[in-house]
């Protein structure tokens, strides 16, 4: 027993057939797709995948939000195929690694990421086909590369449709930062996703607009903007660039948005810097558009100061809590039931327990496991309980609060979970980097580096030269990284890091830079 995403989407396409499902901008013109039109495209992708022999296979997607991306994603997960959405901002070598580790045999690639083609073709031997997420024909001669239009044409060769998946079949694999420095593929089933969509207690008039501004490969965006939005017959507007978020809020006039705390902080700067003579209502309309009433936020801690400030403009900010491993929502405040400072009540399908203060979750939305990582799966799922790595408590009214972390991950206010080891391993390759620890400070990442003393002496470098050389090295590293993995602070240490008896750097004492006592 259980629910399928296909059930959810098919029901919506029947109930809301004529309502706009997706709208987007292209050269300042707004394009739209109704629920029935979207479903037609989804079916073509699904049948095309069957006709091309990809039943049961893993299929990766690389690209930013677009109608083509979401229709392809739905085409994959409504059949017996598994979708692997990847972060289009990652360097090519990381994407190649994830395509290979997820055993993906086909790939949908956004036109903006076309430059990755050669590297992927050369380094991903299991890939049999790449479809560019575009209707236009693809130039070039590699037989493996075609367009989305070609895949849809292939669907016309057959009357057969893909079988419905089973509720406990894996629908999607979403990669998340691992504490050991290697990202982990979270396997979510049809039922995991569909029960999360159903359990979030929120409803809105069909046709209400949601402006989707988060990266679509993230579970929070994918499940709560898109799948939840589709289940309610909402209209999903695509934000074409973070450059234009505020402009697009005025074009699409959303009534609901999902944001990470960093977005709320940035928008607040615009509100706070405006001329105080401008009436609040007018300023609110200028920044938020005419209709915005609700912002759901999660992924990182939000200072409740912003909740009060946004309320002055008639916008309710509702905090929630989740992680990819829980499909992703665990608890959420709702318009009718909320408490400031809390991350809301656990969803109706969630049981909460605690182990030495660590929040444990049991739910129909808890993942099947990490793909091909049995040890990490066993460490996280124990006796049916998922260990979240966060510390917290439930208050007397049943609201959940977070007050610390167990695992060694840096959580930035854009919701990205950063594994410091993953970045330290890369920075350690710098010839002037002797020892390095990455810490999260002021909403960004700081590299604390003890320079390689042999090189300092050999080159006769003074403090300013060391600082300049290391900054140049970091600038070079940053060039190939998505913004959330860039290093924005550099501290050059005078002394080596303090180490434990087992010679491991004591991370919690990384800020201390003192000479070690001589024994």
């Amino acid at each position, binding site marked *: 027993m259980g629910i399928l995403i296909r059930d959810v989407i098919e029901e919506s396409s029947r109930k809301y057939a004529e309502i706009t499902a997706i709208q987007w901008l292209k050269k300042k013109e707004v394009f739209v797709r109704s629920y029935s039109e979207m479903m037609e495209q989804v079916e073509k992708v699904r049948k095309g995948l069957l006709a091309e022999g990809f039943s049961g296979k893993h299929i990766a997607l690389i690209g930013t939000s677009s109608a083509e991306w979401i229709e392809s994603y739905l085409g994959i997960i409504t059949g017996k195929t598994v979708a692997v959405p990847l972060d289009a901002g990652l360097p090519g070598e990381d994407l190649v690694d994830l395509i290979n580790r997820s055993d993906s045999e086909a790939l949908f690639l956004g036109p903006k990421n076309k430059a990755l083609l050669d590297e992927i073709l050369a380094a991903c031997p299991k890939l049999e086909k790449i479809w560019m997420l575009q209707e236009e024909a693809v130039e070039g001669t590699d037989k493996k590369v075609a367009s989305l239009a070609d895949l849809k044409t292939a669907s016309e060769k057959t009357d057969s449709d893909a079988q419905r998946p089973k509720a406990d079949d894996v629908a999607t694999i979403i990669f998340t930062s691992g504490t050991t420095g290697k990202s982990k593929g979270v396997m979510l089933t049809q039922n995991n996703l569909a029960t999360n969509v159903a359990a979030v207690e929120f409803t809105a008039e069909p046709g209400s607009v949601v402006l989707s501004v988060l990266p679509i490969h993230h579970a929070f965006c994918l499940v709560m903007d898109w799948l939840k939005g589709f289940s309610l017959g909402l209209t999903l507007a695509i934000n074409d660039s*973070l*450059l234009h978020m*505020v402009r697009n809020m005025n074009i699409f006039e959303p009534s609901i948005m999902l944001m990470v705390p960093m977005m709320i902080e940035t928008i607040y700067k*615009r509100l706070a810097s405006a001329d105080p003579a401008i009436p609040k209502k007018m300023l609110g309309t200028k920044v938020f558009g005419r209709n915005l009433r609700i912002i759901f936020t999660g992924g990182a801690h939000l200072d409740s100061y912003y909740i009060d400030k946004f309320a002055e403009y008639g916008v309710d900010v509702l905090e929630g809590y989740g992680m990819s491993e829980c499909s992703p929502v665990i608890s959420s405040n709702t318009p009718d039931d909320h408490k400031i400072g809390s991350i809301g009540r656990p969803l109706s399908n969630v049981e909460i327990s605690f182990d030495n203060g660590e929040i444990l979750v049991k739910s129909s939305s808890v993942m099947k496991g990490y793909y091909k990582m049995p040890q990490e799966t066993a460490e996280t799922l124990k006796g049916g309980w998922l260990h979240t790595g966060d510390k917290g408590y439930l208050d007397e009214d049943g609201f959940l609060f977070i007050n610390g972390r167990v695992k060694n991950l840096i959580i930035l206010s854009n919701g990205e979970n950063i594994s410091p080891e993953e970045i330290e391993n890369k920075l350690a390759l710098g010839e002037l980097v002797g020892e390095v620890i990455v810490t999260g400070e002021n909403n960004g990442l700081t590299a604390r580096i003890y320079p390689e003393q042999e090189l300092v002496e050999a080159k006769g470098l003074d403090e300013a030269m060391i600082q300049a050389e290391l900054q140049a090295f970091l600038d070079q590293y940053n060039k190939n990284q998505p913004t959330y993995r860039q290093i924005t602070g*550099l501290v050059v240490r005078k002394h080596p890091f303090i180490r434990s008896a087992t010679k491991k750097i004591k991370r919690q004492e990384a800020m201390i830079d003192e000479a070690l006592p001589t024994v």
Partner: protein
Amino acid sequence: MTQEMQFKTIVAQYCKVTPEEMTNSMRFREDLGFSSLDFMSFLGELEDTFDLELEEEDVLKVLTVEEALELLERL
């Protein structure tokens, strides 16, 4: 107001440095404390204020106030 001062006034909305204190060698992220999203939002405001079309690929290379002013000058 000169174009440079108009530009620095927009920058100042996102940080605690006044337009007068701002030097051209300051780095947006490291010295002015911009988050990655502050930077994007700021660029969106530049587009609206100066009626420009910026390419994400170009602007992501910009690190300092001076580099942003040069970009503005070129467009």
